[in-house]
């Protein structure tokens, strides 16, 4: 917050103020410039702690699955596996939108989630694997299609109306299903802890790559490029929620103005996490996480940078307010998106949420790039 303090003092133009300002600027020369500080603090306070939480949640899920499979008829333990799966989904939702770094290498994200599953591949590939005779190990899961890996596969194993029930885990065939449940959760645990370790200073130290920019840093030759990736994360994150998580599955074409004059043609099986009916919670967590990245989890984030360096406090507040409004609108939706998708009486809150997302997205896409002095690039979701 040095520069916030500095500005009014300089404008005061008193001798004392200049002295203080000089000493502060000396101080500033030793400490990183604001743009670097944004990177360091966003990386450390927001991103790394999200990866850590996701890794811990995956570990917990793996333990719960292992414990359950020792006594597969225990309903309470089965429910524990389900609830730890939910926690892991929320953990994933905090890092899902990050557009750079270890998550992008070798398709880590796909190992965690396969969505949308347009052709019901998850059910088909999981059942095909169960019919094989090979021993199921995390390695076997790693060699297999991404479709049988990660949270999506686990969701099928834990929540599918036919395949994800306690009964399917009992008996001779059930044992193999349990082996798969444990192996997939083990594999997920490896993937998520791998991501966390790649970021940590005492691990792969990606935090240093991200925050120490310069000519020798081929990925981030200067701070603006790294800030551009943060911008991308925010914009594409909100875009993904609006278009893929809400509008496409729920057939929203009005742009949120509430006037719909065609019969609804929802595609509920394209909702994220439809089997567990957990899509709304995941969306809310996404929004909290994106807001958290914007604010560097209350440390020195893009919000402060906008305010101090770019003299854009109004925009900074507007973005934070936009996130709050989106979160409130999503929280106001009653019931799961899957269950209310085709109920006209539940339509209004959904459209209201969509409209808030549109407002936020417009600010992020139109105003934020200009204010930060960076611009948006192409995105692999630009296809159809």
């Amino acid at each position, binding site marked *: 917050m040095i520069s916030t303090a500095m500005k009014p003092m300089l404008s005061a133009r008193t001798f004392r103020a200049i002295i203080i300002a000089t000493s502060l600027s000396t101080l500033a020369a030793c400490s990183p410039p604001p743009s670097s500080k944004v990177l360091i603090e966003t990386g450390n306070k927001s991103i790394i702690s999200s990866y850590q939480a996701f890794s811990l949640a995956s570990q917990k899920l793996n333990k719960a699955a292992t414990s359950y499979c020792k006594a597969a008829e225990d309903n309470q333990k089965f429910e524990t596996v389900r609830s730890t799966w939910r926690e892991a989904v929320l953990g994933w939702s905090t890092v899902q939108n990050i557009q750079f770094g270890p998550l992008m290498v070798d*398709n880590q994200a796909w190992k965690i989630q396969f969505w949308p599953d347009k052709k*019901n591949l998850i059910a088909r590939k999981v059942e095909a694997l169960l019919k094989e005779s090979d021993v199921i190990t995390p390695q076997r899961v790693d060699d297999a299609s991404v*479709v049988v890996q990660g949270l999506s596969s686990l969701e099928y194993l834990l929540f599918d109306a036919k395949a994800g029930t306690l009964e399917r885990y009992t008996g001779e065939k059930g044992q193999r299903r349990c082996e798969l449940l444990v192996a997939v959760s083990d594999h997920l645990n490896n993937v998520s802890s791998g991501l966390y370790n790649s970021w940590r200073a005492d691990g792969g130290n990606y935090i240093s790559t991200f925050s120490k920019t310069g000519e020798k840093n081929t990925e981030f030759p200067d701070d603006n490029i790294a800030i551009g*990736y943060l911008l991308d994360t925010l914009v594409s994150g909100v875009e993904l929620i609006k278009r893929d998580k809400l509008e496409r599955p729920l*057939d929203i074409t009005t742009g949120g103005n509430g006037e719909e004059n065609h019969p609804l043609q929802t595609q509920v099986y394209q909702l994220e996490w439809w089997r567990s009916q957990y899509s709304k919670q995941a969306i809310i967590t996404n929004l909290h996480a994106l807001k958290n990245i914007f604010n560097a989890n209350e440390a020195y984030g893009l919000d402060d940078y906008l305010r101090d360096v770019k003299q854009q406090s109004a925009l900074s507040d507007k973005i934070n307010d936009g996130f709050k409004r989106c979160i409130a609108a999503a929280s106001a939706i009653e019931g799961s998106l899957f269950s209310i998708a085709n109920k006209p009486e539940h339509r209004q809150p959904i459209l209201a949420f969509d409209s808030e997302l549109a407002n936020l997205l417009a600010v992020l896409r139109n105003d934020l790039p200009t204010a930060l002095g960076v*611009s948006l690039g*192409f995105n*692999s979701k*630009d*296809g159809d």
Partner: protein
Amino acid sequence: MTILLRQLLLIIGLSTLTLNALAAPNMPSPMEKRAVAVHYTDIAYAIYSDAEKSAEALQGKVDAFLKAPDQKGLVEAQTAWKLARKAYLQSEAFRFGNPIVDDWEGQLNNWPLDEGIIDYVDDDYFYALGNIGGDLNIIANTTLNLGSDTVDASQINKELLRNLHELGGSAANVTTGYHAIEFLLWGQDLNGHGPGAGERPYTDYLQSEQCSHGNCDRRADYLRAATAVLLEDLQYMSQQWAPGVDNNYRAQLLAMDNDTIIARMFYGLGSLSLGELGGERIKVALEANSTEDEHDCFSDNTHWSHYYDGLGIQNIYLGQYQRLDGTLLTGPSLSKLVASVNTDVDKNTRQALDKTMTALTVLVNAAEAKDKPMKFDMMIAEGNKRGEEILGNILNALVDQTRGIEQSAAAINIDPTATGL
């Protein structure tokens, strides 16, 4: 898919702008930009006209085949279908930046489809969860039952197929376009990751007691109608790009300011490279080991589709297009605009585009090899290291080329997202 492999555009920072102003490289003049924009519409007109002509040729072969169905006629129709894809795939570089193309392309090229909406399928057939049209089988049913609604399908004609396309809002309900025709010519590819494409017998169209799989008359009607729809659609689009037509898309586009048009050009190239070709058409199939996500899954012609998509992107950047009759159309290009400001950036982008074409040529050569050809559906099999490498190289090249496209746009101060869309 879930990953957003977004590549970032760097420039436009204040410092860069200042630098540009100081170093004062002359930005392309409005006249130069205009020439590139006009040539872009000329290329579009040539490509869509070629697509139209080759669809006409397909229609000729289909009619001949249906008149006297035999194996030779079927193969000739299949060959004509493959030729008809050549110009169309190159036209895809006009997608994404031009709404008229995107609002229209679904009826020509939607995939993957739930083919059970059209005709008979194997017992192992799966369709998208919740799709009310997934096993309608229009060919076998004169009345289609849609829960509370019924549709009279006694006459299979263009109107019926257009009405049923994307039934229930599902993009898997594909009743028109190249892939519907492909399915009618090849049938399902039941070989999974093994060698071989669809093996529909020509007897499926015999108008006699030897008709296989029933309803040969309706199947012939369907093929005839779907081919006619395709041709109509292409006629419509080539007219949209024809010069001297009042208020067609070409006229509307050229009424926009130069930078918006050039942004649309770049936007189409980047989106097709990374999101569509790289993401949807290669990466999903490869990572999921899913033949369901193969682009031309009935005919195993996917390698050529990918190749011509790549070529289409390169065409636009270089301002060139080789017509189906062999003549080469050349003119003012993005490449020249960029080179006039920064030769290095232009060179890098051209090299990146070349690298992609080299990687796509490896794909085509492997798929067309005389000895043990490896088709796309074999490459995406679990554990196929060579296939993974071939496709991985294409993906990497597409990522690099997208970065090149972004840098080229930045070099001439174009924000590719400022498309006015």
